[in-house]
């Protein structure tokens, strides 16, 4: 995972256990494949709350390897701050027909 920056807004990502697909923790405490649905943490307490929720889903084997990553908000659009995490929100940049960017 990419380095995280202290104080930057964060969201929680993981992989779904049964198929490995990248998912994001939503405000409603469920998992979405779309980064636009994420819950954003702006304080250390909110970050911990996301991690705790992630751990509880990992414990019931819905997801694996939850971790926080930096996000940026441009108006209503949410974007991963680092290219690695951005890649996870889209799919391979060299195969636009695959992954989330393909919309399938």
């Amino acid at each position, binding site marked *: 995972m*990419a380095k995280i920056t202290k104080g930057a807004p964060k969201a929680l990502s993981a992989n779904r*256990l049964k198929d*490995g*697909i990248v998912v994001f923790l939503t405000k409603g405490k469920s998992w979405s494949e779309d980064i636009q649905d994420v819950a954003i943490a702006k304080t250390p307490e909110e970050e911990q709350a996301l991690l705790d929720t992630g751990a509880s889903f990992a414990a019931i084997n819905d997801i694996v390897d939850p971790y926080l990553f930096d996000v940026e908000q441009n108006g209503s659009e949410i974007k991963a701050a680092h*290219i690695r995490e951005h*890649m996870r929100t889209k799919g*391979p940049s060299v195969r636009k027909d695959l992954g989330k960017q393909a919309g399938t």
Partner: protein
Amino acid sequence: MYRYDEFDAQFVKQRVAQFRDQTERRLSGELTEEQFRPLRLMNGLYLQLHAYMLRVAIPYGTLSSKQLRKLARIADKYDKGYGHFTTRQNIQYNWPKLKDIPDLLDELADVEMHAIQTSGNCIRNVTSDQWAGVAVDEIEDPRGYAELMRQWSTIHPEFCYLPRKFKIAITGAPNDRAAVAFHDIGIKMKKNEADEIGFEILVGGGMGRTPVVGVTIKDWLPKKELLSYIEAIMRVYNMYGRRDNKYKARIKILVMALGIEEFRNQVEAEYDKIESPEVILPGEEIGRITSYFAPPEYQKLADTDIAYEEKRKADKAFASWIATNIAKHRVPGYAIANISLKPIGGIPGDATSEQMYAIADLAERYSFSEIRVTHEQNLVLPYVAKQDLYALWQGLVKHDLATDNLSLVSDIICCPGLDYCALATARSIPVSQNISERFADIERQKDVGELKIKISGCINACGHHHAGNIGILGLDKKGEEFYQITLGGSADDNASIGEIIGPGFSSDTVVDAVEQIIEIYRDIRQHKKETFLETYRRVGPEPFKEALYATD
């Protein structure tokens, strides 16, 4: 080709049943991820950037048409219609679902394939020369010995929990096409003064963050002592290899720490403890296994085929492909046909299921149903009669498989990089695509001549950048992709590690830098036959540095 005996088949099927049970227990929550991770890794299943990734072993890079068709079917049924051939002669699928893996492995077992030894701290899939058995320079076919080492190393109880992964490569030819000097153990078949064929054993080679060219530990080893000598090396490594720091755990670090003399002494002492070494590898067992690699039933052909020669004269595109992609065969009237998986602007090593089916059919028709995978991420049909080359080429053209660029600028080794890999620090595939497109003109590539460009998306060096004549390493510099260039590396029989040329380049400028390096080479080469590597070894880095970093 090797065929499973009853024991092999039973073992692989049992292993699949075991993993089916483990997967079910993971999905039901009976196993935690911490408990399951080592089990899935022992079966080649990684969790990557976007999804799971399954790496399937292709022992010493040899496949039958039936097996390749199965790989194509798996790409369609369990993945997204393609596979990626790796720099260790394996194939990776990028999108399989965990719940499907047991069924997928069952299908692989049906064609004598599996994903064992493609991950974890064990002896990995043994690699070899893709031209084994057909190369004109070969002393002896190494595949029988590769198969022996595969059987010996598979779930060898002593070597399942090594300090780190362990890679072995073997070549039967003096011109090294298997990069043996960059392996933990590299094996070269060679003759001694009495003209007997045996092995030269190299140890401690590797890439990653500490690149090292392997050194000779045994100048000549009798054939029957192969396994016992390797076992002695493994025992010394297993005992003294570092387990406290994974970055210092490979055998190369131990060999460097002890020095080759002391390491050799320890191996010899260990070897002396193995009772009757020749008992371990009896002649009849060598004979049984090497008999699987007997040559196919070649036709008796004249070495010159008139119809083929006429086609070469008449069809310029065919002639160009022949000039770059065909190698001389040891049997008169035959040729080695190399299939480039590097179309201009394509993803190195990727093949669609449709291409895999097509190659399987062409191999069945023209190459005794056999295909080889190369560590340079291409494929080979090893037994093509010259009279069939035109038809083969036409078949390849139909499926975008006839790129005439073997060993040229656009025949780039490239790891998946940050487009797929969880460990990567930068993308490597787009750099490779951009270089390939910049040099799309094949005549320009031919004028440049042999040039090995190798690109890795992180310091782990899966793209073999240390061994690239031009090596490119992708790094993360404050969140931006950034590329370091090395020059002068080589994986051949005169192996060398590339030297960093200077400060790195952004993703916008790295292709310009590569082009500039190539143009400098064209300017300063003594003649057209002096390769990039020869020129670099003659002049060193200075002319390239001056051009790249000159300040007016």
